[in-house]
């Protein structure tokens, strides 16, 4: 019996050591949120399949970078209260939804995105918007490693979203900080293709060197092939953060 107890303690100690020494293991939470019900047959007559595909890619990215546990959801549980209730402990956040730089006491901008409207109604800005000012109040100065806004316009110079996560809008940040967003209105296919290229580059890295998120941004940008809805909205992703950061949590 004593031997069995000793073995159990050893196993727990080994497990503790493993969890403590393995970056990301049960330590660095990420949330991936994807608005699905705004884009389903109930509201549009067809089911837009990109929210699910983008969600899968984002989950793969968070997993590969070592964020764990990985929360969030695609669909009805992506509510304002769920987002705001979970964002503080996060180290990485991904959102796919309808997003924009909304006026707030013109000419001030308070960027935002829409929560999933759930299964009984369709999107309504007044009910569904999650503003950057609200997020900022909740994050309350807390640091974030990686924030991806897979929406329209939240990568533009007028966006206030990166500030909500304490990531300054410069490309010379120090530390583990990276924010990615799109500048103009963006086709779902272009976002999916860009994020696939972003992920491909990171995953395809060599065994003896690690690739940076900025490198992934450059790669995804320069391989091209992205469609844009019109000449006034060319496909353009943007980033702020540390150009040397490899995306690992900490």
């Amino acid at each position: 019996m004593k031997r069995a107890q000793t073995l159990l303690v050893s196993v727990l100690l080994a497990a503790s050591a493993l969890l403590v020494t393995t970056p990301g293991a049960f330590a660095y939470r990420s949330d991936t949120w994807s608005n699905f019900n705004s884009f389903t047959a109930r509201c549009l007559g067809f089911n837009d399949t990109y929210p699910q595909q983008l969600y899968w890619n984002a989950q793969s990215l968070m997993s590969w970078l070592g964020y764990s546990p990985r929360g969030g959801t695609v669909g009805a549980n992506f509510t304002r209260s769920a987002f705001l209730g979970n964002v503080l402990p996060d180290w990485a956040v991904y959102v796919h939804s309808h997003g924009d730089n909304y006026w707030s006491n013109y000419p001030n901008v308070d960027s935002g995105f829409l929560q999933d409207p759930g299964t009984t109604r369709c999107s309504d800005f007044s009910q569904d918007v999650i503003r950057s000012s609200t997020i900022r109040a909740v994050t309350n100065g807390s640091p974030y490693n990686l924030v991806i806004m897979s929406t329209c316009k939240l990568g533009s110079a007028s966006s206030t979203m990166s500030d909500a996560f304490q990531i300054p809008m410069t490309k010379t940040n120090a530390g583990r900080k990276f924010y990615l967003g799109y500048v103009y209105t963006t086709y779902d296919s272009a976002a999916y293709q860009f994020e696939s290229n972003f992920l491909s580059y990171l995953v395809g890295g060599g065994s003896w060197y690690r690739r940076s998120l900025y490198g992934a941004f450059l790669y995804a940008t320069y391989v091209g092939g992205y469609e844009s809805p019109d000449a006034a909205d060319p496909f353009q992703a943007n980033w702020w953060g540390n150009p040397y950061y490899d995306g690992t949590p900490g």
Partner: protein
Amino acid sequence: MSVLKSSTTLKTAVAAGAIVLGLAMSTGSLTASSLSGVPSDPPAIDAARAARTAVTSTELHEDSSPNVFARAARTRDAIGFPVGPRRSGRHVHDGLKQLDYDEVAEVDASGQPLALTQFDNAGLLVAAIRFDAAAPAVARISGDGAATSALSALTACGVSVGGQARTDANDLAGGWDVHWPRSQAGFAVRGDEARVHVWPDGRIASVARVEHTLAAAPARQLTESDVHLAVTRQMDTWFGGSDAGYVVDNMDVEWVGPNAAFDSTKVGAAPQPYRLAWVANIRPTGSAAGAVRLITLYVDAGDGTVIGGDVVE
């Protein structure tokens, strides 16, 4: 600063708590959702999809794959890319892009990639990209000068292009983006292009080529009025019975990739050759406009079926 520090401390505490929770979970006494009140275990990635979209690579070495490294070095030198003290080669099967390629990266002494080249199985350039930073330019190249440099780089990389280039100033990265959109039989191939980014000083930052296989054009093509009817029928099916409306902005004929945009049964299906289609841009009005800014339909130019499309949310 004190706010940041206290929040960092909070996060560290949360992380430490998560470690404890992780241990608890290993005993089966808790689930991760206890941390937040929201399921931390969203729908698992479909195993078949994960396998299809996996990115796998096999290391290549200079002694066993001399041709791969020699081709990469020729391209690197031809477009003035930096030479690193080390090189890393690999054959990549990229399930996300449904593409196989040989890649050689130049890596600096600190382990950061300086540049890479990728060639497909036919030996054609996929991409050549440098990752170091452009020095501030003393003299800035003009758009015309950038287009000339870009064309030279494409030629050096073995990429042939036709038609007129489009040169755009890149406000974010600086310099110029020079594109040659691909067309076939007089119709644009949607998304296909040769593309070069030129730094403000005229040096080449990237060369890339996107080119898809094309199916044969249909023997008989639908007229615009036929297609307008097909689009109206489709939109009325989708929006009928709701207060959503729509306006057909414009339509033109392009080569497009059939996709799963509106059909979940096709998600993850093997890519098909591009087909000639009418591309219709439709602006939703009424309730649908709250979530979607634009719906783009691909209507097969031969038989009028919807073979895919796109959405701007």
